[in-house]
């Protein structure tokens, strides 16, 4: 529950906002990011680089989803005068730090959402003009992005859990997402002081079924070709959690080795989960062997693993034929049996797909569903993209279909990418919702809960915050012929010159009766030849 401003000593009546501490300890916090945050007046920074798409219906609810490509959203402090300038500098500096092409973030793909992306850390008042959000859906993530990410860790990849993170195994995966989150948090429960929190997350989906000879057993060695040997000396906490939640209330379905020292039960994302905990800092862990290789074996062959359908999931596709028009459709599923809840949908569409907002229709169960809040900012050619934010109420057990038509623009030949017929990417739309939890969650002690559950602040136990991303779209645009610039310029100028020439002749010359001339040299020569031939002269 956020405490009111006057109760917090670092908040001075809301006029100047949070007085965030300057970053001065670089023992654990990387200096590159610390200096960046201080110099540009950043309040919160979230950067995610993702390869692949999280398949919610087969893999379940993601712990922390990110859209394909690069996503960057930043809250600036109210003291920043020119937010756009700071944003440009920030994206360029981050581009250098993470070796990603974040320098392509400019006004044509940056938006200022008004309802989504509220601050995840401490914030005093939310003037959405201090927020910037950009996605680069075309960005490819590879080893050279992982290396600087690992370098930000206090122990690097030399000790602790990060020794597992070797690129050649991590990128042999169906989904790879690495993220950096910086936000201000309370230093302890009494919230007398504020600290900066840097959170680095790495989400990888290994397909062990296809690589493990048809068995779903896995082990750390099989996945990472390495095992854990010790904890990072600088770490105060170093734990491995293995989800051993029993399905269908059956025990003994799976077996984890070595036997975990403790088991932790929690309600995560509305689901009761049981985790086996391996604490690398406890001395008893490495008693029997020098290294820790967690293994999981399934006792019985799994039959079409039925993960519970997530309460909220969505998909998006583009339809239509030809290169002139098209339609973007988003389907949002609410599978909760009896609870309805609202969802905020944020869509960012590039300017060259001209959305027609009068064709926006939202249909639920055959009837029109009017959103309670719409914020639409139309695009300006070559300057900013479309921004559509809506608060839609999803009835229980329903499918909501949102459609909007667009028209494809013809761009200048220099504005196409080198492979224009590949198409242009439309970044994922973002769905943010407080999903009602099927099981009531009691107030958890923030100190004790695992770190992966504490990114999104929860206000009460009956619902949990979910941010989902839909598929990115690939749309073809009509192309001019790229080999023809000179030809086109010459031909069009010829047509204009034909007009100019005809009009010039008609305007500056007058009619005269033609007087017979003696004829030039050519005519006389021709007459001589004609006389020889016996033909009448010209």
């Amino acid at each position, binding site marked *: 529950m956020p405490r009111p401003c006057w109760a917090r000593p670092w908040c001075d009546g809301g006029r100047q906002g949070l007085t965030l501490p300057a970053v001065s300890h670089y023992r654990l916090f990387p200096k590159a990011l610390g200096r960046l945050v201080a110099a540009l007046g950043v309040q919160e920074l979230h950067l995610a680089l993702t390869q692949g798409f999280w398949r919610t219906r087969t893999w379940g609810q993601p712990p922390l989803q990110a859209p394909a490509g690069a996503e960057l959203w930043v809250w600036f402090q109210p003291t920043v005068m020119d937010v756009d300038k700071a944003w440009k500098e920030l994206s360029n500096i981050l581009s250098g730090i993470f070796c990603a092409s974040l320098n392509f973030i400019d006004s044509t793909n940056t938006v200022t959402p008004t309802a989504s992306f509220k601050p995840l850390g401490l914030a005093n008042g939310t003037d959405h003009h201090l927020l910037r959000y950009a996605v680069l859906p075309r960005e490819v993530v590879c080893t050279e992005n992982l290396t600087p990410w690992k370098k930000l860790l206090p122990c690097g990849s030399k000790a602790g859990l990060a020794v597992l993170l070797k690129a050649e195994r991590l990128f042999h995966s169906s989904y790879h997402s690495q993220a950096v989150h910086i936000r201000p948090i309370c230093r302890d429960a009494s919230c007398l002081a504020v600290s900066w929190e840097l959170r680095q997350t790495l989400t990888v989906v290994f397909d062990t079924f296809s690589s493990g000879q048809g068995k779903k057993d896995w082990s750390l060695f099989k996945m990472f070709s390495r095992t854990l040997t010790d904890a990072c000396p600088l770490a105060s906490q170093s734990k491995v959690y293995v989800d051993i939640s029993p399905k269908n209330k059956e025990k003994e379905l799976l077996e984890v080795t070595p036997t975990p020292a403790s088991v932790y039960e929690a309600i995560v994302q509305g689901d009761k989960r049981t985790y086996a905990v391996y604490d690398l800092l406890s001395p008893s862990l490495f008693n029997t062997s020098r290294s820790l290789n967690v293994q999981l074996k399934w006792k019985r062959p799994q039959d079409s693993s039925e993960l519970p359908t997530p309460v909220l999931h969505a998909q998006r596709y583009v339809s239509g034929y*030809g290169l*002139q028009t098209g339609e973007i459709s988003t389907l949002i599923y609410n599978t909760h049996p009896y609870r309805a809840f609202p969802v905020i949908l944020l869509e960012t569409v590039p300017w060259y797909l001209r959305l027609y*907002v009068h064709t926006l229709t939202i249909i639920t169960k055959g009837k029109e569903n009017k959103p309670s809040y719409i914020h639409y900012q139309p695009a300006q050619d070559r300057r900013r993209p479309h921004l559509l934010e809506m608060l839609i109420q999803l009835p229980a057990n329903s499918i909501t279909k949102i459609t909007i038509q667009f028209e494809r623009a013809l761009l200048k030949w220099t504005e196409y990418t080198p492979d224009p017929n590949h198409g242009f990417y439309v970044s994922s739309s973002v769905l943010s919702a407080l999903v009602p939890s099927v099981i009531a969650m009691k107030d958890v002690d923030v100190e004790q809960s695992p770190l992966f559950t504490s990114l999104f602040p929860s206000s009460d136990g009956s619902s949990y915050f979910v941010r989902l991303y839909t598929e990115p779209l690939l749309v073809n645009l009509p192309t001019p012929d790229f080999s023809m610039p000179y030809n086109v310029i010459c031909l069009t100028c010829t*047509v204009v010159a034909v007009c100019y020439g005809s*009009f010039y002749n*008609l305007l500056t*010359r007058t009619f005269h009766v033609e007087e017979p001339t003696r004829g030039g040299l050519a005519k006389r020569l021709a007459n001589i030849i004609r006389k020889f031939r016996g033909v009448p002269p010209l």
Partner: protein
Amino acid sequence: TESTSPDSNAFVFCVSVVEGLALLDLGVSPYSGAIFHETPLIIYLFHFLIEYAEFVFMITDVLTAVALYLAIQDFNKVVFKKQKFLIELDKYAPDVAELIQTPMEMHYIPLKVALFYLLNPYTVMSCVAKSTCAINNTVIAFFILATIKGSAFLSAVFLALATYQSLYPLTLFAPALLYLLQREFIPIKLKSKSFWLYTMQYTALYLCSLVVIICLSFFLLNSWDFIPSVYGFILSVPDLTPNIGLFWYFFAEMFEHFSLFFICVFQINVFFYTIPLAIKLKEHPVFFMFVQIAVISIFKSYPTVGDIALYMAFLPVWSHLYRFLRNIFILSCVLVVCSLLFPVLWHLWIYAGSANSNFYYAITLAFNIGQILLISDYFYAFLRREYYLTHGLHLTRQDGTEAMLVLK
């Protein structure tokens, strides 16, 4: 949602008006986006009439036809009077009886003009697509009617409306002024005081109405946003949606460095024929108006078939020039074939994917050349007839043999 072909052009689609109204409903200025580029008066008009849009466009077409009918009827009377006057003054050569226009042949011209406009397939297409070009045509037709009737005030008001809608009718100021001066029997001499007085009056009327209309638009939506969105859009050509004009592909393939230069060149190209035409055609301001409207329709930044329909409606007025037209058959074939090929090649490029943009561009080039040569052919025929009227139809050389007439 009516568009299947670009002939009626994204700029003037009724769809953009619907979009503008939807944006207003959402509380966003319609000019904050890149779809709506109509003037605030249009959005005000359609705010009330959007349900009857089809009727509105049909009525505007009928009004245009009626205005043209009345205008040409009056014009014929003026032409006949002038002709009679010149015959009495013996300004014409003796053997030009067959070139003189008789009332019999002039009787059906206004009806032909109205029908040429209404039955033109371009007009029908423009009406079906609900292109706001029809409204432009109506305003210009009323302007022509007011000018020919001699009312300087109404002429200035309609011209200001037409300029406010789409910048280019500004060039019609010169022919209107010349016609009104002629009608008031004021000689067009630079030293004449009455000439300057009348010019100043007309200019003042025109500028005042323009200022009033623009201020009215400001008060409708409480912002000056519409100026860069409407006029900036017309002048800087940011939208490269294919249409029947020359601009779109040219600027799609232009090197960035020269983009501004060529935009300026193309825009000046529309305006700079006015002064030379005014000097050459000062005795014939209505023909000047026809040529000027044609030049605007060909070289404006987002031409549509509706603009072509307007100047083609005037062709029956010059039907007496038929004998002097040199290439009319081939030009009409070019225009007809290109009009038929436009939708075919558009479909092949955008939907079938078996052609590319060059095919459509080639037809654009051929169509515009056809139009340009048509206009210059009519101009040539007009000038030639004038020469014959004053110098006689059967010209002989000094030695008595039949003469050839050349343009030197």
